[in-house]
């Protein structure tokens, strides 16, 4: 990755798209502290976070989900979310249990809170991850392809969910391949290719960008 410069304003929903292998997940890993960047700056709300450990970055307010869902397999749904609540930014005065219950209601998992992730569908497991990330009370949420592989009904539910999250004031940076989604809810888009930003701007602008079209030609079926 090189020469990547991007910005997410407070409360914005920003989409990150690009062909396979363009470096999107790598970017996420750099932001969330999994990999240390060789050069450059990463700042959250003005504070530098490059080079910090993943857990401190989380406590500073960045939450994320993973492309391949990784809920904690030996913990129930509720406990998964509780982990996020315990070690994230916290909710101030509010009791963690209340915060978790609220979030589980918000994402629709309340009925399944005592089940183990292994017993649930992939859609539900995605929701566990999402709830867990939300439980860290992030200011910026990194969503990694949460829409992939969902049927239309689930897709729409998720769309609503993500929009609701945005309404709560949480900034979102989402990697997506499902164009319909990312076009619909992003305030702005960045297009990545071979580790470089090749376009940015409002969804309509990017969609008509010649470079972007050529990069995607033949690769994506637009929904």
């Amino acid at each position, binding site marked *: 990755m090189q020469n990547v410069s991007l910005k997410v304003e407070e409360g914005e929903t920003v989409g990150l798209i690009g062909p396979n292998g363009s470096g999107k997940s790598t970017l996420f890993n750099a932001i969330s*502290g*999994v*990999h240390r960047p060789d050069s450059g700056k990463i700042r959250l709300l003005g504070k530098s976070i490059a080079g910090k*450990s*993943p857990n401190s970055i989380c406590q500073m307010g960045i939450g994320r989900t993973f492309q391949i869902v990784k809920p904690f397999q030996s913990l129930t749904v509720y406990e998964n979310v509780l982990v996020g609540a315990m070690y994230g930014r916290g909710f101030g005065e509010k009791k963690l249990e209340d915060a978790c219950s609220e979030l589980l209601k918000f994402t629709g998992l309340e009925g399944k809170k005592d089940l183990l992730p292994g017993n649930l569908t992939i859609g539900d497991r995605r929701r566990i991850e999402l709830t867990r990330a939300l439980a860290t009370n992030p200011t910026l949420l990194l969503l990694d392809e949460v829409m992939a592989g969902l049927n239309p009904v689930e897709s729409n539910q998720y769309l609503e969910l993500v929009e609701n999250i945005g309404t709560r004031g949480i900034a979102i940076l989402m990697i997506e391949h499902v164009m319909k989604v990312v076009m619909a809810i992003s305030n702005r888009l960045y297009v990545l290719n071979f580790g470089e930003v090749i376009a940015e701007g409002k969804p309509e602008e990017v969609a008509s960008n010649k470079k972007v079209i050529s990069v995607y030609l033949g690769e994506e079926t637009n929904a």
Partner: protein
Amino acid sequence: MDILTTAVQAFLNGIFEGSVYAILGLGLTLMFGVMRILNLASGALVISAAFLSYWLLQLLGIDPYLSIPIVLVSFFALGICIAKGVVEVSMSSPQYQIVGTVMVTYGLALLIENIEVIAWKANYRALTPPAYLPTSISIAGVMINTIRLSSLIITVAVAVGFTFLLKTRFGTAMRACTQNREMAGVMGVNYQSISAITFGIAAALGGIAGVLYGLTELVNPYSGMMLTIKGLTVAVLGGLGSFYGALLAGFVLGLAESFGVLFVSAAYKDLIGFVILIVILLLSPGGLSRKEFYTPT
């Protein structure tokens, strides 16, 4: 003058003992490179080879050096059996884990150890060197123990042989597996077979090391663990992936031990290897591949 002699002696001792460690480390690195497991039974296998040679001598009167080919072949076969029987089984269990395989090899080590204790008691045995060799010869005015010299020669032979092996089709396939297992599979390499054969080779190498070790040291069934840890030290020191690094590291350990005992009492000799291992593990980011050892941050 005295210091010089001592130093030279220590140097030579280090090189000679190191040669055994070098072969041992090479075997471990091989197994790790291809199968990504640390075989904690390697020391036990080495000692078993020493015992095999011992009994061949005692019961059949076979010269230890002549027993090497026998050991080579039988341990190659044994290695393949272990790879197929034990390692593959544990790797294919529904909840596969690499650490579990380590446990299995540890169990195997104790299994071998204890079977030998039951069979042959825990007495120390010595592999008597053949009578036709003079005990020591004089080279450039320094007395050199011929047996130890022979182990160096044999180690060099092994290293040379290994270099040729790497150039063969099999060797290339092996190297492919150490780099990237999946890619190798795509290229038509049968990972299972290569693994098994590699294990066999590593075991055979351990066999040679065993005979050489038996010729110079007293062995008993419990000596295995100590050797395993020393082997691990060598493998880790050599970079856990670099074959020549392992060979070099073997000599380094030998030298460290032989010079070390000049400063601390002989009882602590084995300790030196352990301490080196711990130190390397702790200092890893510097010398060795960071990703292999550490989880991020």
